[in-house]
């Protein structure tokens, strides 16, 4: 077993175990912490693929940004003694069924696909290239999606301000 395979197995195990713990934990802050481990391990997988940029984005946005926001809102709203109620049987069985069917479908599809062995070495993606394609509009250019997302983000920001603003009446 090479070290790459070992790390891949380690990260995958962490992702699988903590994903399950995230949805089964009855304490909401613990669930958020487990989610953090899942996201950090995903970043680890990206590092393994030498896609450092995406890994750093994953760490900043998801682990450092979104999870911190989730934890922050939990801090503001819930008390330490609170435990989420366990779901009733009526909810449990359909949920389990859907999850199992989804998992089975994915596994069947993945197993049927014949993955060709990787022949190309992983190469480091240059940040300069990513930056250039984000603002170019020719081939491999992402200027339009980039701008659309910016407008969406601006709309969300304005919406948040409007919602949070005190009404005068």
């Amino acid at each position, binding site marked *: 077993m090479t070290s790459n395979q070992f790390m891949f197995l380690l990260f995958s195990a962490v992702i699988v175990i903590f994903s399950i713990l995230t949805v089964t934990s009855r304490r909401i*802050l613990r669930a958020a912490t487990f989610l953090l481990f899942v996201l950090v391990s995903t970043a680890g997988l990206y590092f393994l693929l030498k896609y*450092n940029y995406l890994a*750093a*984005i994953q*760490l900043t946005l998801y682990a*450092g*940004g979104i999870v*911190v926001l989730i934890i922050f809102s939990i801090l503001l709203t819930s008390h330490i*003694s609170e435990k989420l109620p366990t779901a009733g049987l009526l909810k449990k069985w359909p949920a389990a069924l859907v999850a199992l069917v989804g998992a089975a479908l994915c596994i069947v599809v993945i197993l049927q696909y014949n993955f060709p062995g990787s022949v190309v070495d992983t190469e480091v993606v*240059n940040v300069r290239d990513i930056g250039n394609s984000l603002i170019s509009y020719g081939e491999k250019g992402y200027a339009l999606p980039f701008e659309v997302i910016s407008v969406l983000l601006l709309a969300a920001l304005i919406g948040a301000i409007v919602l949070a603003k005190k009404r005068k009446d």
Partner: protein
Amino acid sequence: MAFNIYDFTSFTQSIDEALYEWLPPFWALIVEMTIIGLVFLIGYAIIGLFLVYAERKVCAFMQNRVGPNRVGPYGIFQTIADFIKLLMKELVYIKNSDKLLFNIAPFIVIIASFMAIAAIPFAKGLHAIDFDIGIMYVIAVTSLGVVGVLLAGWSSNNKYSLIGAMRSGAQIISYELSVGLSLLTIIVLAGTMQFSEVVELQSSGWFIFKGHIPACIAFVIFLIASTAETNRGPFDLAEAESELTAGFHTEYSGIKFAFFFLAEYMNMFIVASIAATVFLGGWMPFHIGSWEGFNYVMDFIPPLFWYFGKTAFIIWLMMWFKWTFPRLRIDQLLNLEWKYLLPINLVNILIMAFIVLMGWHF
């Protein structure tokens, strides 16, 4: 570099080659990682102890006192004695806390700082990992530390801790922006995020001189914002001992408290090394453009000396802040970031981009 004896590349490479010759690749990698881990652990212990001593001496100096002076000459063994005391203290067990999170929190804080220090170049070749996105990686992993602070505050089940964690969260999330943007200003100037290249580019002059006005503004903003991000005074309202007892780590004792304490000092060290590397040339000696003789003389001084000298200077600046400015209120703190630093920073990046486009930098 004029002197090859100061270049550690061949030294580290020979160790690497020897290990791969003796051992199968998997075990060679494990041995390498263990060696690097041990080096960093020892470094953490020594630097941490030294910084605590330095802080107490600087504080005493600012307040016209003597500071620690009983254990060893000039009290240099005081922090070692304190450390032994901390190790032997009882770990207080809190009944109504969330034990899992309570125990995990100090580790998250210290692991985040360990991840950050891996990317910092100490000298040519003395670099645990040289990412092509080095600066961004450091920004990314330092933002993980706040999770530990938040978890510690909440899981202690203590009002003071919770308020401290809340303040710390708001503070770190806001000031992260300024840290990132001020570093981005220098990335615009350097055109790279790789630490080794950033240092190499400063061989003809440090970035704070090369980028003149915008670089100086970015340096000041980085110092302010990173002091806030490491929860140090005058931005230490997360601990605010006079109002919150000790904030998020009120309930921690013994070695777990030591973890928070060490992480705080190591974060200060990491932030100071980033400032030294990005703005003041890291291990690169002080060079002036084409003064051959002067540059040659400067090259005699070993890079480790330059690196630690610059870092120590910035740490001293941060200690100076802490012991001379009064603590900010939370609203003043957030105003400072969102109404002053952030707009200044955004304009500063534009100015820097303009200067780089026009070629007005040195």
